[in-house]
């Protein structure tokens, strides 16, 4: 920042092409979402007659906006229930893999046991296994165990699919903590559990938080796993299934679709803006180190 302040003022104009290209790209990237947001507040007939940009002809005519679309979607389209379902799915499906991955990552980074290297290489391989290859056998297992259409089944499935990335990211982070620190604690006679809870977990908070954001966004936005293991139409369906059903059955009802889409986006957007810093730093912990 300091360096930028010291630069002479003429620089700003020399950089005009850079400013213009960044502005154009940012504009193009934001436009689709803004269009959706504006549309979701418009009335049904207005939306079918004119494009959403026509509100800019009289932007302060407040009668053209209303909240009716949201109320209708929440009540009659089952989005309210789906929203609660999504929360019920996403929170444990974030906490469970974090707990399991942090313990495993600590063991991989700082405990000695035979086969450690090999087991970790298996985890690295599992990072890229397409989850499609697992659907049929797990579906059959769920049918036998009576786990299909249950939250428990979905939590465990998300845990399984999220774990490789979690263990990988966290082991890279925990393994990079200073060796002296952990050895000093060991010399003082601290048990592994004590080192883990008093030292490792607090120090790894940035990495844990970033994985949490990553996993949460992923679970909240997931359609495939919910579709396969929760079976489409049941009362445990999350917002993504509900919305995708609406696209199928009410494809022309733009007033409902846009409001519905925005309801599915609210929580991810809050999480995204709230924890953006962690999110970015966390992906880096695993990937940028060459």
């Amino acid at each position: 920042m300091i360096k930028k302040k010291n630069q002479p003022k003429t620089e700003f104009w020399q950089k005009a092409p850079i400013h213009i290209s960044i502005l154009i790209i940012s504009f193009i990237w934001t436009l689709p979402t803004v269009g959706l947001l504006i549309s979701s507040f418009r009335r049904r007939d207005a939306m079918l007659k004119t494009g959403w940009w026509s509100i800019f002809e009289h932007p302060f005519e407040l009668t053209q906006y209303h909240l009716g679309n949201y109320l209708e979607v929440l009540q009659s389209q089952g989005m309210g229930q789906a929203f609660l379902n999504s929360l019920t799915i996403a929170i444990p499906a974030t906490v469970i893999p974090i707990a399991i991955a942090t313990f495993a990552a600590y063991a991989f980074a700082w405990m000695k046991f035979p086969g450690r290297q090999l087991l970790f290489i298996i985890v690295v391989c599992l990072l890229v296994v397409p989850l499609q290859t697992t659907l049929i056998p797990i579906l059959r297992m769920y049918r036998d165990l009576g786990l299909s259409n249950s939250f428990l089944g979905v939590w465990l499935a998300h845990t399984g699919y999220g774990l490789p990335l979690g263990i990988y990211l966290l082991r890279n982070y925990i393994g990079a903590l200073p060796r002296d620190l952990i050895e000093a604690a060991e010399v003082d006679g601290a048990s592994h559990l004590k080192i883990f809870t008093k030292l490792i977990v607090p120090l790894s908070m940035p990495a844990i938080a970033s994985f949490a954001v990553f996993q949460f966004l992923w679970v909240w936005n997931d359609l495939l796993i919910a579709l396969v293991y929760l079976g489409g139409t049941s009362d445990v369906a999350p917002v993504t299934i509900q919305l995708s059903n609406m696209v199928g059955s009410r494809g022309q009802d733009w007033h409902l679709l846009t409001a519905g889409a925005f309801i599915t986006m609210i929580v991810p957007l809050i999480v995204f803006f709230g924890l953006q810093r962690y999110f970015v730093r966390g992906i880096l912990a695993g990937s940028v180190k060459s």
Partner: protein
Amino acid sequence: MEVISRILEVILAIAFGCGGVIGLFYLANYGINALPKPWNRHFLPWVYIAPAMIVLSTYLIWPTIQTIYLSFFDGRSQNFVGLKNYIFAFTDQGMLVAFRNNLLWLVLVTGISVSLGLIIAVLVDKVSYEPIAKSLIFLPMAISFVGASVIWKFIYAYKPMGDAQIGLLNAVIVNLGFEPVGWLVERYVNNFALIAIMIWLYTGFCMVILSSAVKGIPENIIEAARIDGANSWQIFWQITIPMIRSTILVVSTTVIILVLKVFDIVFVMTGGNQGTEVIASRMIKEMFNFRNFGRGSAIAVILLLLIIPVMIGNIRRFRSQERLR
């Protein structure tokens, strides 16, 4: 009242799910501490990694082996059919279309989102409002494929010539004096329309990771090059790109994996009709619409085979990282 009881249900379910896993670890640790000392040291690592290994084997390793096995059986997994499902996968007209489309997705999404991400990362490094611009471009990462599909269905919306266009793209085209285009229906353009969505979603991701790599290049190297008379263009090609090559590889790998697995966009936007099928969406169709588990499994295995080179690259990178540690 009903709302409150529902919310209570939600809280209860969440508490049960989260509490369960933490309780598990405390219980295991308690059990280990009851053992005599030398045993304890020996067993503890296994207690720490056991839950992870059990989950990974149940949800990834075992099912994958099972799927490979099932891919040699008929639709209802009863009779052994040898390579018949694979022969189907490589000869069926619909499958060939899916392969062609997936190739198109791979080349265009990876090529454009990585290079555009890199260009933005380099440009944005030079301005003071960098965080805002980055957030705006990164934002689609938070949006689900389904949500994005609604956004883009609205952008691609088509009304016949003469009617007012409510889709942004056709409104622009009509104002320029052209006929409106059925973006999702016309075979010469619909695949590109779908690919554009994925590029919109992932350019921000590429940008963020490449941007931190660009910032990691030591300042004095660039200074030195500038003193030697290099212009921005030469610095970009001869310093920036070679210095962040490994990050470019990581980012491309991630995008390739994501593209191979892509299913939601096609599923929600076109249902795979009008020649827009991709491998993953085709597989879901075989499995859940046609109930042919043999073919579905064979397609899944092909997906896995396509990813194996990426897997090998990952192991290599991990090994060389370990040597530095």
